[in-house]
Structures are given as C-alpha cells and as structure tokens.
C-alpha cells in the first residue's frame, strides 16, 4: 500500500475553499429550485393552456435529458445566442431549474391534496383565488412537502459536483486540482467524500429544524 494522508494539510485550504463554493452553489440552487418549484406547480395547475403547454415542454426537457447536457447547453450553448453567463451563474441556473421541475411535481401533488374546503372557506370570506392560493393552500402544501423536498436537496448537493465540468472550482474540482499537483487521487477523493458527507449532515440538521418548527405550529 502506498497511501500518505500527510499530503492533505498543504492543500486543505484549496479543498475547503472548494467546499465553500459547493455550499454556495447548493444553497443558491436549492432556493431557486424551491421558489421555482412553487411557481412551476402553480403554472402547471392553474395557468391557461397557452402558458401551460410551453411549460410542459420545458419540464419535459429538464426531466428527460441529462443534467450534464443541460449544464453544457446553458454554459456553452447560450453563448451562441448572445447569453454569456459566468460559470457559477450557469451552474446555479442549471441545477436550480432542473430540481425546480422535480420539486414542482411534488408540490403539485401536495397542492391537490389540500382539502377542497380550505379553498372554499377562503373564497367565502371574499379572498380571490390568488389570495387563497397564496395565503391558505400553498403554505399548507409546502408544509407537507418539506420532507420529500429535503431528499431532492440532498440529491442536488451531490449533483452539484457536475458543475465542475463547466469550470466552477467547487469541491470535486478542487480535489482534482490538488490531485494534479500531488498525484494522490485516493487521499483527496476520500477527503472530498468526507467533506460532502459533513455538508450532508449539516443539510439534514437544517431540514430537521425546519420540520420541528412546522410540527410545533400544528
């Protein structure tokens, strides 16, 4: 065996900076996927056909093609039509929209599962449909959908490694940089794996806190 973990300290700052980028991109994409998921769900359920159909196509594109391809398309492809996004923005956009489509499926189901009487009660009080959705139906739907969305967000964290291919020096790419200098792939990939695991634990802790807060309000 030829393992030497003493090479790690010299490159720890590089890897940890990568971890910061991974967290940044994950948090930004998670927020986008959450807000986007709600908007997409409302569009899918309530928008007129002329809006809904193009949206279906868009959703199909994001669900039916590889995320890697989507990132290439956004980062390299859009330049050709004059949209030149920084790699970080392209990465957030790709990951965020991709998972927004998945979140939207969950949120749609959850909206439909909210008791019909809730909308009726809100409407009889004089609330418009939009107000009733915003204040009564969607908050309840979102509350019920937090646990499965949490699973999506863990998947998002792991898939954030894909943005390394468009040159965002996040955790995986940083580990590769360190490997390029030291020729120590095992050590640095294990380190990267450990850091992903720690971030994962952090995300689970955040999710648990959110769930507890929701439970307290029941």
């Amino acid at each position, binding site marked *: 065996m030829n393992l030497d973990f003493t090479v790690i300290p010299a490159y720890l700052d590089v890897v940890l900076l990568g971890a910061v980028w991974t967290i940044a991109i994950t948090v930004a994409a998670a927020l986008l996927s959450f807000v986007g998921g709600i908007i997409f769900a409302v569009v899918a359920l309530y928008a007129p056909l002329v809006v809904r159909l193009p949206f279906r196509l868009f959703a199909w594109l994001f669900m039916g093609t590889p995320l890697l391809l989507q990132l290439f398309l956004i980062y390299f492809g859009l330049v050709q039509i004059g949209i030149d996004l920084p790699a970080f923005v392209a990465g957030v956009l790709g990951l965020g929209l991709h998972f927004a489509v998945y979140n939207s499926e969950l949120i749609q189901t959850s909206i439909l599962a909210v008791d019909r009487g809730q909308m*009726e009660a809100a*409407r*009889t009080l004089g609330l418009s449909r939009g107000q009733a959705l915003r204040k*009564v139906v969607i908050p309840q739907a979102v509350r019920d959908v937090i646990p499965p969305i949490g699973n999506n967000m863990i998947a998002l964290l792991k898939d954030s490694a894909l943005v390394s291919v468009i040159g965002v020096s996040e955790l995986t790419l940083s580990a590769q940089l360190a490997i390029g200098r030291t020729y120590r792939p095992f050590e640095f990939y294990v380190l990267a794996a450990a850091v992903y695991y720690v971030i994962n634990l952090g995300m689970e802790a955040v999710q648990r806190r959110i769930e507890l807060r929701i439970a307290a309000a*029941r």
Partner: protein
Amino acid sequence: MTEPKPFVDIRNAQKSYGALEVLKDISLQVARGEIVAIIGPSGSGKSTLLRAINDLDPLTGGEVWLEDTQINKKLPHRQYEKHINQVRQNIGMVFQHFNLFPHLSVRENVTLAPKLVKRLSEDEAEELAREQLEKVGLIDRIDYYPSRLSGGQKQRVAIARALAMKPKVMLFDEATSALDPELVEEVNLVMKKLAEEHMTMIIVTHEMGFAETVCDRVIFMDKGVVVEEGPPSRIFRNPDNERTQNFLRKHLANANR
C-alpha cells in the same frame, strides 16, 4: 300592508349535474333579520341550495339576490371574480367540517380576511378578532392553533372568522353535524346569541329541536323541491304534507334510538 322587500331572494333556482336534477325550480325569500331552517333528507338539495346563495355551487338556472345585488350575475371572468369577492364579504358561511386554516393560529384565522380583503390595519383587525372571539367565548384561545381545539371550539372560531367580515347574512351548512353530541350545545348557544342580535341566518340542519326553538320559519325540502314551509310550530307539530310527516317520523325514531 305591503310585503317587505326580501333581503335574500332566490328566484327559480335550478341546478343539475348532467341528467341529475338537484334543484327543481326553487324560489325562497328571506327577510332581513329572519332565521330560516332548511331541513330534509340527505340528497334533498338543501346544501346545494345554501351553497348557491354565495355562488359556491353555481346554479344552472335562476337568480339569487342579496338586497339590490344579483349574486350569480353572468359576467366575463375577471369582472365576475371582482364582483363575487365583493359580494361574498357580505355572506358569512359556516361549514360542517369547520374548514379552519390549520397552519394559522386562531388570531390569524380570524384576521386573515379582514386584513387581506378589507385592508384593515394589524391593530384594527386585532381589535375585531378580539371582539368576535369574545362573542363566541374563545378569547383565551387566541394564540392556539386549530389542532389544539375541540370540535365545538373549532366551529365557534369558524363562526368568529365569518363574523369578522361583518356579514349581512350567515349561512350554516350542518354546522353541528360533525360534532360529538356533548359539543353541539356550545355551538347552538353561539347561534342563539346571533339570533338575538337579529342576524339574518339560513341554517341547513338535522337538529329539529334547535330549528324549532330558534328559527322563524322552516323549509322542508325533498328531491330538489320545497315540499312544505311554515312556522316551526306548525311544521313540526302539524305538517300538512305526507312526505314531511314521514321524514319527521323517521327522524324522531332515529333521534330517540
């Protein structure tokens, strides 16, 4: 003496789902301050009629008026939405299953519509909520979430929530049917209090005792028509129609079982 102009005026209400006729040409006038009970077997159309009043279940024919406003006006979508949101502020509704908003506290349940629809300030809405919760005897539960209330308390909050919009009419759709027997009375007491304040009320109910003591008039519906109507003393003691007699006899037999 001239008849007073009806406050709620249902003219030739018809409702059908495909070939199934749920309401067959029903007309019903309710005066200001009047308390009307609608009774009848399940499937008679009484809830559908009640829900037609605020256009929750739109009629397929006929008109519903509140004072000088036609409620079920045929308008282009946007205009209709504006119109109906306006109209519904005047019509409070209480449901069998309460339909409180479970993610909101009692305070927020009651203040939501006044703040959102009437654009009241936080303080004004708070004052209004306290006033209404005081009336239903639940001011000490203002910070609770619905899940921590009993069925009777939930329904009283639902009544306070409807009253906070200062409606001109209150509709009750089997408000006590989902309650445990020992919780029915507290809701009935609140409704009696409203009756004493001369709130106009239309009450779909299975509780004949309550209808008899509180209501000015009883409507008996069966198979989508009004079979018989009159003062409670006559309808309950001495109904003319055979269908009414049968219904009441069966109902009493069930109630005494």
